[in-house]
């Protein structure tokens, strides 16, 4: 039987606000335990939550980016359960009236086609703290620094049909939150976390199979592996005539397997109800307009513009807009020269290669986009050849100044003086009588040999086109 997998993702995005969603404690990662846990984050008696405006602003920003409905009135609800990293015994979340309603996102598939994926909703909630199990006998330590960090949970429709599509969706959402600058996107630190709902059904069947929820698949690589593994596991059970229980499963990256965390039967009854400490969030059209006026150009629009404005291929435009920082770099470099396509090649080849080699991100590049553009301009205006440009780039990377300084200091300026080149050509012809005879006898391929000799004599600085022309003319 042929099977089809059905996947929906719930992605938790930590919003990069300065303070917690309901308290004035900082959200910085990596502080000493409980140093950033205020009375509110600790759930002390009598203290009350007050909503951080920036969290609302960021959520609305994402809503606008997903073309989603922004609820004029939405409500916080309490999700009640006991766990040591949940100080109040309830999580403040949103339930039946989320801030962000249905929207959508386009993802690009491997075959170059675009797929529209529905987003069911996105809601604001508070993060929990962390339990640490090492270092204490029969005890766990509780660190509540993370408690109260604002989260936006973005729930997709079950529109994804393969692990690859799921990854494409996750990557695209990651790109968008980075573009919007509402999340630092750091997956190691848990700023961008993913739960996946996975089920399988016989191909052609309309009804969904029973789903398993995969918890905490927190890297692009693990998501693909975990989902593929889960799909295989479910198909195997179904083909053996078994049924899938509705349950929560945990992905173990070390063993590449998923295992049961809790089944539906043992599931908590969360007793959601509207949080009486918080009033309805009212978002006015003016507030939305204000957020909209602050929206950056989004990846899809920027890619289209790169194609039309800079004449880039769809592929190149896609690569260069995959992150906001890369796109910003490229635009700055392209703006500093007259050949945006050449700038694209440089950013994607030489620069990316050099950064990869040293494990640096685009924002850590030792060569600024202005300097890279300036160097490209020297290629375009014929000051240096493309070959010499690589040397100039290396020198700039090593911190030897901008292109003009390097060219000047190393005397790399291209020789374009015809008489100077003619002199070098004459010398090469004079020194290689045998090859001249062979060439004139019809061995055209030898032209390359002569060009090479002249270039060598010039230290690589002679203009190759001029060398070519003069050689042809002199050799007859």
């Amino acid at each position, binding site marked *: 039987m042929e099977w089809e997998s059905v996947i929906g993702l719930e992605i938790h995005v930590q919003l990069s*606000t*300065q*303070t917690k969603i309901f*308290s*004035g*404690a*900082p959200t910085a990662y990596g502080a*000493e*335990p*409980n*140093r*950033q*846990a*205020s*009375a509110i984050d*600790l759930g*002390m008696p009598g203290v009350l939550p*007050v*909503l*951080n*405006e*920036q*969290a*609302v602003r960021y959520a609305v920003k994402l809503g606008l980016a997903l073309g989603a409905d922004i609820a004029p*009135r939405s*409500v916080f609800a309490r999700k009640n359960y*006991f*766990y*040591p990293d949940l100080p109040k015994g309830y999580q403040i979340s949103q339930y039946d009236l989320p801030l962000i309603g249905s929207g959508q996102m386009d993802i690009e598939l491997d075959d170059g086609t675009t797929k529209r994926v529905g987003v069911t909703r996105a809601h604001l909630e508070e993060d929990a703290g962390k*339990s*640490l*199990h090492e*270092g*204490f006998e*029969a*005890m*766990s*330590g*509780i*660190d*509540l620094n993370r408690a109260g960090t604002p989260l936006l949970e973005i729930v997709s429709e079950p529109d994804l049909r393969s692990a690859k599509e799921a990854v494409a969706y996750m990557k695209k959402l990651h790109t968008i939150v980075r573009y919007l600058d509402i999340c630092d996107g750091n997956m190691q630190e848990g700023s961008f976390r993913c739960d996946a709902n996975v089920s399988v059904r016989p191909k052609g069947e309309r009804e969904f199979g029973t789903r398993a929820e995969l918890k905490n698949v927190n890297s692009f690589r693990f998501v693909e592996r975990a989902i593929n593994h889960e799909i295989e596991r479910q198909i195997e059970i179904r083909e053996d005539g078994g049924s899938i229980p509705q349950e929560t499963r*945990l992905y173990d990256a070390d063993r590449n397997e998923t295992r049961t*965390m*809790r089944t539906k039967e043992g599931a*908590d*009854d969360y*007793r959601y109800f*509207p949080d*009486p400490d*918080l*009033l*309805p*969030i*009212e978002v006015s059209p003016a507030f939305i307009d204000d957020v909209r006026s602050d929206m950056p150009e989004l990846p899809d629009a920027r890619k289209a513009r790169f194609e039309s404005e800079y004449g880039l291929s769809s592929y190149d435009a896609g690569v260069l807009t995959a992150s906001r920082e890369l796109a910003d770099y490229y635009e700055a470099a392209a703006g500093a020269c007259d050949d945006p396509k050449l700038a694209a090649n440089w950013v994607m080849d030489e620069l990316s290669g050099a950064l990869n080699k040293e494990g640096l991100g685009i924002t850590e590049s030792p060569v600024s986009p202005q300097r890279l553009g300036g160097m490209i301009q020297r290629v375009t205006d014929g000051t240096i050849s493309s070959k010499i440009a690589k040397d100039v780039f290396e020198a700039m990377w090593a911190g030897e100044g901008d292109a003009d300084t390097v060219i000047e200091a190393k005397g790399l300026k291209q020789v374009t003086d015809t008489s100077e080149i003619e002199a070098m050509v004459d010398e090469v012809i004079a020194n290689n009588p045998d090859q001249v005879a062979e060439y004139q006898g019809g061995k055209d391929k030898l032209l390359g040999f002569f060009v090479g000799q002249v270039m060598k004599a010039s230290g690589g600085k002679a203009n190759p086109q001029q060398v070519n022309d003069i050689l042809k003319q002199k050799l007859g």
Partner: protein
Amino acid sequence: MALDANQVREIAHLARLAIDERDIPDYAENLSEILAFVEQLGSVDTEGVEPMAHPLDMAQRLRPDKVTHIDERERFQALAPAAEAGLYLVPRVIEQ
């Protein structure tokens, strides 16, 4: 609705309350009486009435995203039944 002993145990578990087995019949009786009392609500027609969660028709105030925190960890943890190395200690968490 009358609650039986098992339902009382389930609710007590959900609320994480240890209830002495000997007290369960009393709780079952009291809770059943209270529930029977509040079930008068069922007699009134509330079709189309929007539930009211707050007495006032006010919207949520928003707080500027500014750090106002003062680290008082030592003071807070002096109140804790068990704390060590800046962490609150609880019996080992097994699940998850």
